[in-house]
């Protein structure tokens, strides 16, 4: 564990979809605490509830029961716009299918969140240039996502998640669409960010490489935590 400061906690969280006979409960009374600087992987088979848990922890979804606390704040009780501001300022996201904005260039995709944060133009340019350099994307800054390979797009997505210097990054199956070499480079880069900048990473994954790099593995099945092991 990088630090003992608690950054995220879910308390007795359950999630139910549907009603009556069609009711499903992908998450059932889950409690979990994550500390600053952790490199944590939530693992489990498909349908086990790991993405639901990740969504609730990141404020993308609200629990039916229980609560989620991020940096001490109850995010399950926040209204939509406050939560949007909170995500913008404190959380980074990396998705399996990259999810870049197709009409923006690489530079603009990374700049987008800084723009939402109302950071002055010169500062935005400086920070985007820096991250492009770090991720080896400098020559691609004017390209549109459709002109990039999957690996390149995911690197842009990582750059976009990192550029705001968030405390926490959620990554949902970030390597699932990448070949193993590209995947491992990306994991190495995220590991580096974790170690050098102290950014907490929470993965939802099947990827054995991520699992091998993770300091902590939370195993989940049928909506409940099976095991929680630290390396």
């Amino acid at each position: 564990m990088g630090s003992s400061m608690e950054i995220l906690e879910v308390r007795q969280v359950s999630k139910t979809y549907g009603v009556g006979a069609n009711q499903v409960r992908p998450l059932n009374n889950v409690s979990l605490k994550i500390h600053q600087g952790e490199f944590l992987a939530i693992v489990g088979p498909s349908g086990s509830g790991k993405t639901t848990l990740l969504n609730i922890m990141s404020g993308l979804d609200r629990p039916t029961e229980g609560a989620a606390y991020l940096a001490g704040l109850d995010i399950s009780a926040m209204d939509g716009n406050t939560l949007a501001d909170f995500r913008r300022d404190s959380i980074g996201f990396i998705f399996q299918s990259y999810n870049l904005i197709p009409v923006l260039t690489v530079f603009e995709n990374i700049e987008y969140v800084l723009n939402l944060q109302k950071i002055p133009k010169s500062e935005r340019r400086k920070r985007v240039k820096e991250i492009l350099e770090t991720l080896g994307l400098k020559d691609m800054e004017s390209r549109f996502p459709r002109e990039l390979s999957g690996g390149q797009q995911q690197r842009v997505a990582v750059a976009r998640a990192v550029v705001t210097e968030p405390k926490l990054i959620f990554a949902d199956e970030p390597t699932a669409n990448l070949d193993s070499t590209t995947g491992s480079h990306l994991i190495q880069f995220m590991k580096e960010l974790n170690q050098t900048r102290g950014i907490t990473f929470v993965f939802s994954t099947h990827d054995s490489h991520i699992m091998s790099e993770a300091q902590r593995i939370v195993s989940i099945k049928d909506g409940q935590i099976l095991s929680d092991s630290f390396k």
Partner: protein
Amino acid sequence: MFWRIALRNLFRNKRRTLLTGLTMWGSYILSSMTMGLVGGTYGFVIDQFTRGSSGHLQILSQGYLDRPSLQNSLPHPNEISSQVQQALGQELQGLAPRLEAGGLLVSGKEVLGVQIIAIDPVQEKQTTRLLQQIQGGSPWNGTNANNGIVLTRDLVERLKLTLGKDLVLMSQGADGSLGNDRFKVIGIMNEGASTVYLNMNKAQEFLSSQEVATRMIITLKDLNHTDEALKKVRLLFPDKDIQPWMVIEEEFYRAMKSDQSAIFLTMGIFLFLAAFGVLNTVLMAILERTREFGIMRVLGTQDKQLIFVIVLEQILLSLTMCLFGALTAGFLNIFLSEHGIPYPAPIEIGGMTLHHLYGSLNWSNMLYPFIVVVCSSAAVSLIPAIRSARLPLVKALGER
């Protein structure tokens, strides 16, 4: 950044954007031309009608419209005339006095009640086209000047009269005396019913109403300046009743208004249908990007910012297409105001015969369609935009 996103989104599916844009362009042109044609044609009809007899403004004694009487007349019409000329200056086309009374027309054994209208042929000619409606043109010339009478076609037919025949007209003068005189039919008026026209000089003598008129008819060079002229003349004669043609010819005015309303209602239905066409393509464009909008929200875009981007996209498109529409419609409206569209057969409206459907170009038929098309485009995109901003994030991210 939002402007850039909105603008670039327009170029993502060029064919669809073109289709939506063409609907907006077509709606603009349709509305502008409809307004132009309605304005042009009705403007033409109203102008023809008012110049035909009523004029654009009338000066009357207070209460004359409710109780028309020779005792309630305007003294010294020449003085009124020179004051109006001074006040309206170049705006004035013409000004003519009229004297009106009731009377009995006797021809052989037939006796009919008629309205007597006395006109000054010289001033009337400068003011209205009343004399042009008399078969044979201006009749009070030379020896006919005094005892000539003009009858409406209706009276001529009912009394079985012809030009040159004599008849007797009886009436009560302003002083209460009963007068009668023999007149010669010197003209036939094509419009109207049960009305006879006399020369002003003869009528003033016949009706014991020297130096008075019951109405002063004012015609302006431009019908559209009626309101301003009305204010000026009202200021000039606060003790008199000054009324515009809309009040004098209230029935005609209402008929025109209701006709126009029906046309604008039809235009509204067209625009509504066009808005549905736009809604259809806008819905497609927005719904297929639900996931993308979800990502923008995940990154911290607020609901109102997302709604702004989506609506802005449609506003930018509609503004551009309205500009193109304004150029096209402007050209078409100018062309139609000059050349018009010929009717297959002449059409009668309000006693006027129309041979062409004329257009018109003014601020209202360029600006209102602009506002309607841009606002309705923004309105139709607002509903799916709000939906996109309110959709639960997990659901939005799950859509492809």
